[in-house]
């Protein structure tokens, strides 16, 4: 019975993240458009785009290798697995012990590794510039993320997300300076990792400032659909991660009733709405940075995360 419930909640989680990811992107786009007093594309546009792309032929560059064709699937698989291990509505995921938070970050790292390789496969200048800048951004964002994870894990006494969420939802946490710093650091990292505005612009094309779009420039058809879906999943993952660590209320425990699970799912959608709205608001309010300002932005995240960890070492209650 328990095993069945865990399998069901794991399966529901996998389908939920896959189903919601394009919607979140569509929602953020819509809010951004409304904030700019445009009407914006309909909420469901990302789904239509994905279906359209999947039905189209793949146009492959002449000298693309087998790796280029495999990478979209690798990226998608890595991101999907990572996203299905972050508790969203309930804690009792069947495979929650498969990978802890560090492993989830590393799985996303694998996806990025392959994406950067894809940018270099065809041998164009744009692909190279995208990959080169992506690894520069990652070389700062990834350590900042890991150290943020350290500080959170030291407070919660675990790197298992289910336990972290449970601890964060309990009264034992209280208000802590280090958690505040970790929150800011995680937000900055999330913006950078998802190619959001001050770091990269998800809406541009044909511009020398682009990073993510430059890497995937040669993709088309179903490959592009998978790459897009992976980045939508990644956005959902980071938003869920922030929700799970810093707004853990309402996540159903493993042995809760069906009603609690449904309540958790509704609350989760509410959290996504609020965080997605905040993201859109932030992106509208801020300008894109020059590439060589990004290290300072991410350096701030790195320092905040390190400070949060040090505070934890210095005092158990900060």
């Amino acid at each position, binding site marked *: 019975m328990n095993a069945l419930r865990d399998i069901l909640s794991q399966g529901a989680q996998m389908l939920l993240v896959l189903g919601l990811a394009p919607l979140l992107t569509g929602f953020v786009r819509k809010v951004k458009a409304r904030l700019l007093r445009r009407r914006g594309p309909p909420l469901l546009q990302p789904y239509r785009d994905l279906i359209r792309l*999947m*039905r*189209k*032929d*793949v146009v*492959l*560059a*002449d000298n693309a*290798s*087998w790796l280029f064709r495999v990478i979209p699937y690798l990226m*998608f*698989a*890595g991101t*999907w*697995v990572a996203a299905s291990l972050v508790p969203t509505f309930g804690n009792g995921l069947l*495979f929650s*012990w*498969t990978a*802890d938070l*560090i*492993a989830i970050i*590393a*799985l996303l790292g*694998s996806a990025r*590794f392959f994406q*950067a*390789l894809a*940018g270099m*496969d*065809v*041998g*164009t200048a744009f692909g*190279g510039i995208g*990959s*080169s*800048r992506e*690894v*520069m951004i990652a*070389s700062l964002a*990834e*350590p900042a993320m*890991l*150290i943020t994870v*350290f500080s959170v894990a030291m407070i919660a*006494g*675990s*790197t298992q997300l289910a336990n972290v969420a449970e601890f964060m939802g309990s009264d034992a946490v209280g208000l802590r300076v280090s958690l505040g710093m970790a929150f800011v650091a995680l937000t900055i990292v999330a913006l950078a990792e998802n190619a959001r505005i001050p770091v990269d612009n998800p809406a541009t094309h044909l511009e020398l400032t682009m990073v993510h779009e430059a890497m995937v*420039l*040669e993709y*088309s058809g179903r490959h592009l659909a*998978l790459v897009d879906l992976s980045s939508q999943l990644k956005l959902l993952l980071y938003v869920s991660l922030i929700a799970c660590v810093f707004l853990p209320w309402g996540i159903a425990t493993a042995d809760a009733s069906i009603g609690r699970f449904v309540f958790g799912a509704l609350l989760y959608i509410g959290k996504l709405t609020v965080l997605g709205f905040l993201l859109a608001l932030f992106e509208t309010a801020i300008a894109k940075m020059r*590439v*060589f300002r990004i290290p300072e932005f991410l350096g701030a995240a*790195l320092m905040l995360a*390190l400070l949060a*960890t040090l505070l*934890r*070492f*210095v005092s*158990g209650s900060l």
Partner: protein
Amino acid sequence: MIAVALWSVAVLLALTPAAIALSMRPRGSVVLYGACLVITATLCATALLHLLDPAHPVLSATLPIGLPWLGAHVRLDALSAFFLVVVNLGGAAASLFALGYSKHEDSPGRVLPFYPAYLAAMNVVVLANDAFSFLVAWEFMSLTSWALVVSHHREAENVRAGYVYLLMASFGTLALLLAFGLLASGAGYDFDAIRASHPSAALTGMVVILVLLGAGSKAGLVPLHAWLPLAHPAAPSHVSGLMSGVMTKVAVYGFVRIVFDLLPEPVWWWSMVVLLVGGPTATLGVLYALMQRDIKRVLAYSTIENIGIIFTGLGLALAFKAQGLDWVAALAFTAAMLHVFNHALFKSLLFFGAGAVLGATGERDMEKLGGLIHRMPKTAFAVLIGCVAISALPPFNGFVSEWLTFQAILLSPQLPSWGLKLAIPAVGGLLALAAAFAAACFVKLYGISFLGRPRSDVAASAHETDRFSLTAMLLLAALCLIAGILPGLLIDALAPVSKAMVGNVMPHQVGLQWLTIVPIAESRSSYNGLLVFVFAALCGTAAASAIHRLASDRLRRAPAWDCGYPDPNPAIQYSASSFSQPIRRVFGSVIFAAREIGEMPPPSSPRPARLRVELRDLIWDALYAPIAKAVSFATDRINILQFLTIRRYLTLVFVALIVLLLVVAL
């Protein structure tokens, strides 16, 4: 078992004179490498059986060679057995690779005789149980590897590499000699006697520093690393793989054997020193690697990074052991040993890959490669796995050892010492930086050399390497995956080593549900590489088959899009230097004093504009250059003594005699 090990070493030594004769024969190298393969495989199997023996026997023997009153003591315990596995697995893989690769060798007489001797020397270091045999074997290992480094002696660069290597190797042996001298003052040279002795705290502290200098210079710890990126790439590729993948591990063995085994209980400041050397070594090593454009040099610098990770693990183990938290020490120590094993696998694989590229194109410079994935698909596949594994990405093996190290770091708030409380988060941050840089570095290595379009004619006309080399690489790649998805087996195999060195073991792993690894408790952390791999593979294939069946599986080939500006010239692609330009700008301006100098021709001049990048090795400038300068200054001054008259020489001799007599008399 120890008899098998000793006889195998003896056969390896006997092969050395035979190799001189064999090197004259046309098929001689095949015979020699075949013999080395058989012997190292035997040694590896023997050691593995010993390591897995549930009784964990400690075997020792005394041979009537060496110093007459001492003899040569050898001992096979869990630690030696584990390092024998590492040494001989690397040795067997290198011999298998060399079976095919050796046909590229134009002067086999300069490589063949030293190769078995080098393998034998590394084995003897690991087996030795007295200071005399240890040091003789250590020096023999240095000399034979030096001979292999200068085997292509007509290139000035290799001769310089050999010179620097010889100097640093002598320095390292000197430091170890002094360390053993201090240890032997109360006990003698036999390791068993040293173990039983009780040296004073001041003496052990000095020994730790000396061992860190001696073993650290061989392993490549910053700032003693200067020789490594020169010497490792200079040797033939299979030997480079051995030097980077295996010999640095023998150096780690030396450190572990003396500091964890021969010395009494550690003091907390030892760990502080090791951590403060290990963390920066990891980050600096990989930053150096990112700035290189020679494949083998990138790999050599990345070895320095991995040694940094291993020493960080050892430092953590020392810290926890000094505070009596031996269950965490077991975790940190096992992580370090696992990384020793993992690094031996993927670094050998990557050096073999570099060798295959070198054999196919004659080029080590990434700026002249590109597109090799089309010309050498199997090599490209094996190297890709090596690159993913070394970048510490799941589900491969590099991730597991780094993950365990991070888990040990997360337990460090339990340490009472304030110095460590502040140092360990900083070291953790450095390791995180190193991991991210490593991924960047190997995206660059793989993307520039194997992907894209060929940047030169040799790269465009490259051909797949031979079967033996491919077998060696694919075997290592398979081991990287197996070690990544079944790490519990390795952790359990390492239990006797950890028991003997830090006095505790990690929880038993095999038998946990789905072969998960749980370093402390399931409520703290767990990781299951097997499930991650299966899960991801299922998701990927499910997505692929669903899309192919339900949506579209059509595919057309067309010219690259490139935003509408495709250029047929391959020089338009990103190069190795331009790829690392953003990171060079962010980090290099301080660490390497990097400068970019653009030279624009005057208007109307047809000369092309040039961009020059200047990088300085500040450690070389600050540490090595002054020493070299001081030595040459002193030799210049003393040089006048060479041109004296006979009268003055006689006076000098007489004065020296008087001074000596005075010293003796007083």
